[in-house]
């Protein structure tokens, strides 16, 4: 008898159900992004657009300062990461290596 194998097909069904719930909205968003306006309303549920178009992407690239947005995002994300790492590494080091015997609370 193999110890390491479980009967697990019913768990797979349950988990696949969860995966569908988690991923379907994202997939819906992706497929909608390739549809034209009337396709969005006429074939909402159809996952594959009849004629995939790039219009929406071109619109975003042309009419929005996308590069600026990406730069802003990068700046915010990296400065937060840097500030958090610096403050918490220094504080964590102090907590572990400071002489804590005389102070009961640290």
């Amino acid at each position, binding site marked *: 008898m193999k110890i390491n194998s479980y009967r697990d097909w019913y768990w797979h069904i349950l*988990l696949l159900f*969860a995966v569908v*719930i988690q991923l379907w909205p994202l997939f819906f968003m992706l497929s909608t992004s390739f549809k034209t306006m009337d396709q969005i309303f006429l074939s909402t549920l159809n996952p594959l657009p009849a004629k995939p178009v790039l219009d929406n992407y071109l619109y975003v690239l042309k009419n929005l300062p996308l590069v600026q947005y990406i730069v802003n995002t990068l700046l915010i994300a990296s400065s937060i990461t840097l*500030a958090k790492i*610096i403050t918490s590494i220094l504080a964590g*080091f*102090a907590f572990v290596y400071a*002489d804590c015997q005389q102070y009961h609370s640290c």
Partner: protein
Amino acid sequence: MSRFTWQSVLFLAPAVITLLLFAYWPLLQDVWLSFHSWNMVSPTMKFVGLQNYLQLLSSGELIKILLNTILYILVLVCVNFILPYLLSFIIAHRLNRFSFFYRSALFIPSTVSLAVASILFLWILNPLAGPLNIILSAIGLESPRWFKESGLVIIIIGLIIGWKVFGYNLILLVAAMVDVPKELIEAARLENVSNWQLFRRIIVPMTSSTALYVFVITVVFGLQYVLVPVNMLTQGGPDQGSTNLVYIVYQYGFVFFQTGKASAFAIVTMLLYALFLIVKTKVLDKKVHYEN
């Protein structure tokens, strides 16, 4: 010896200064503001003593908001704590293969920002043209107006948060579950222990410290996540049916410009959080097994 203490003070300084500047100083200002009546532009503040608190307690608004908040917490604890806890047990210990696939697939929505998630679900749940309505009408049901009925709206917003945060909590819990020694589980299997017994008697005690952490972040951060979808989808409506302790502070402060009442609400919220954390430390920590 004293040199070393000075060093540690220096090491702690960046974190402590940031905390003082951005957490404790605003907190003191908040206490001060809550005793005044001000609208953010007027040059003079009127001292009104405890009037903000008395208004807040006598209006009946507080009860409604508290009940909403509790409902939010219940939904969030179900979707973001109990459900991932059970699923992470299955992923970590009941599967022969593909557990990596499930972990990654379930984590993907966590990378989506809450603002995007709100707009996405606003479209999916649209009662006229949304895909869910099409599915529901195909099986002969009428789609309710999800964001317009009190009670329902809280559950829906809780589920939107759940959709996003679920994967992250799942990863944390799976990591804890994987750390449970395989020998214990094999021994339990040889004794023919049922799944439920295995979960209840071995997994829960061995993962309790991570589980408590996930529970606390679900309650504490969950309500802060709620701010984004509530602000984007309902603005606290219908008839304050979806507002909560965190959103009401934002609304009084930056929509109605009544800083006094906003601050009073913020203080009440903070006291309730403090109460929750005291209960957590006094009661729940005693039942949790930390490894060292």
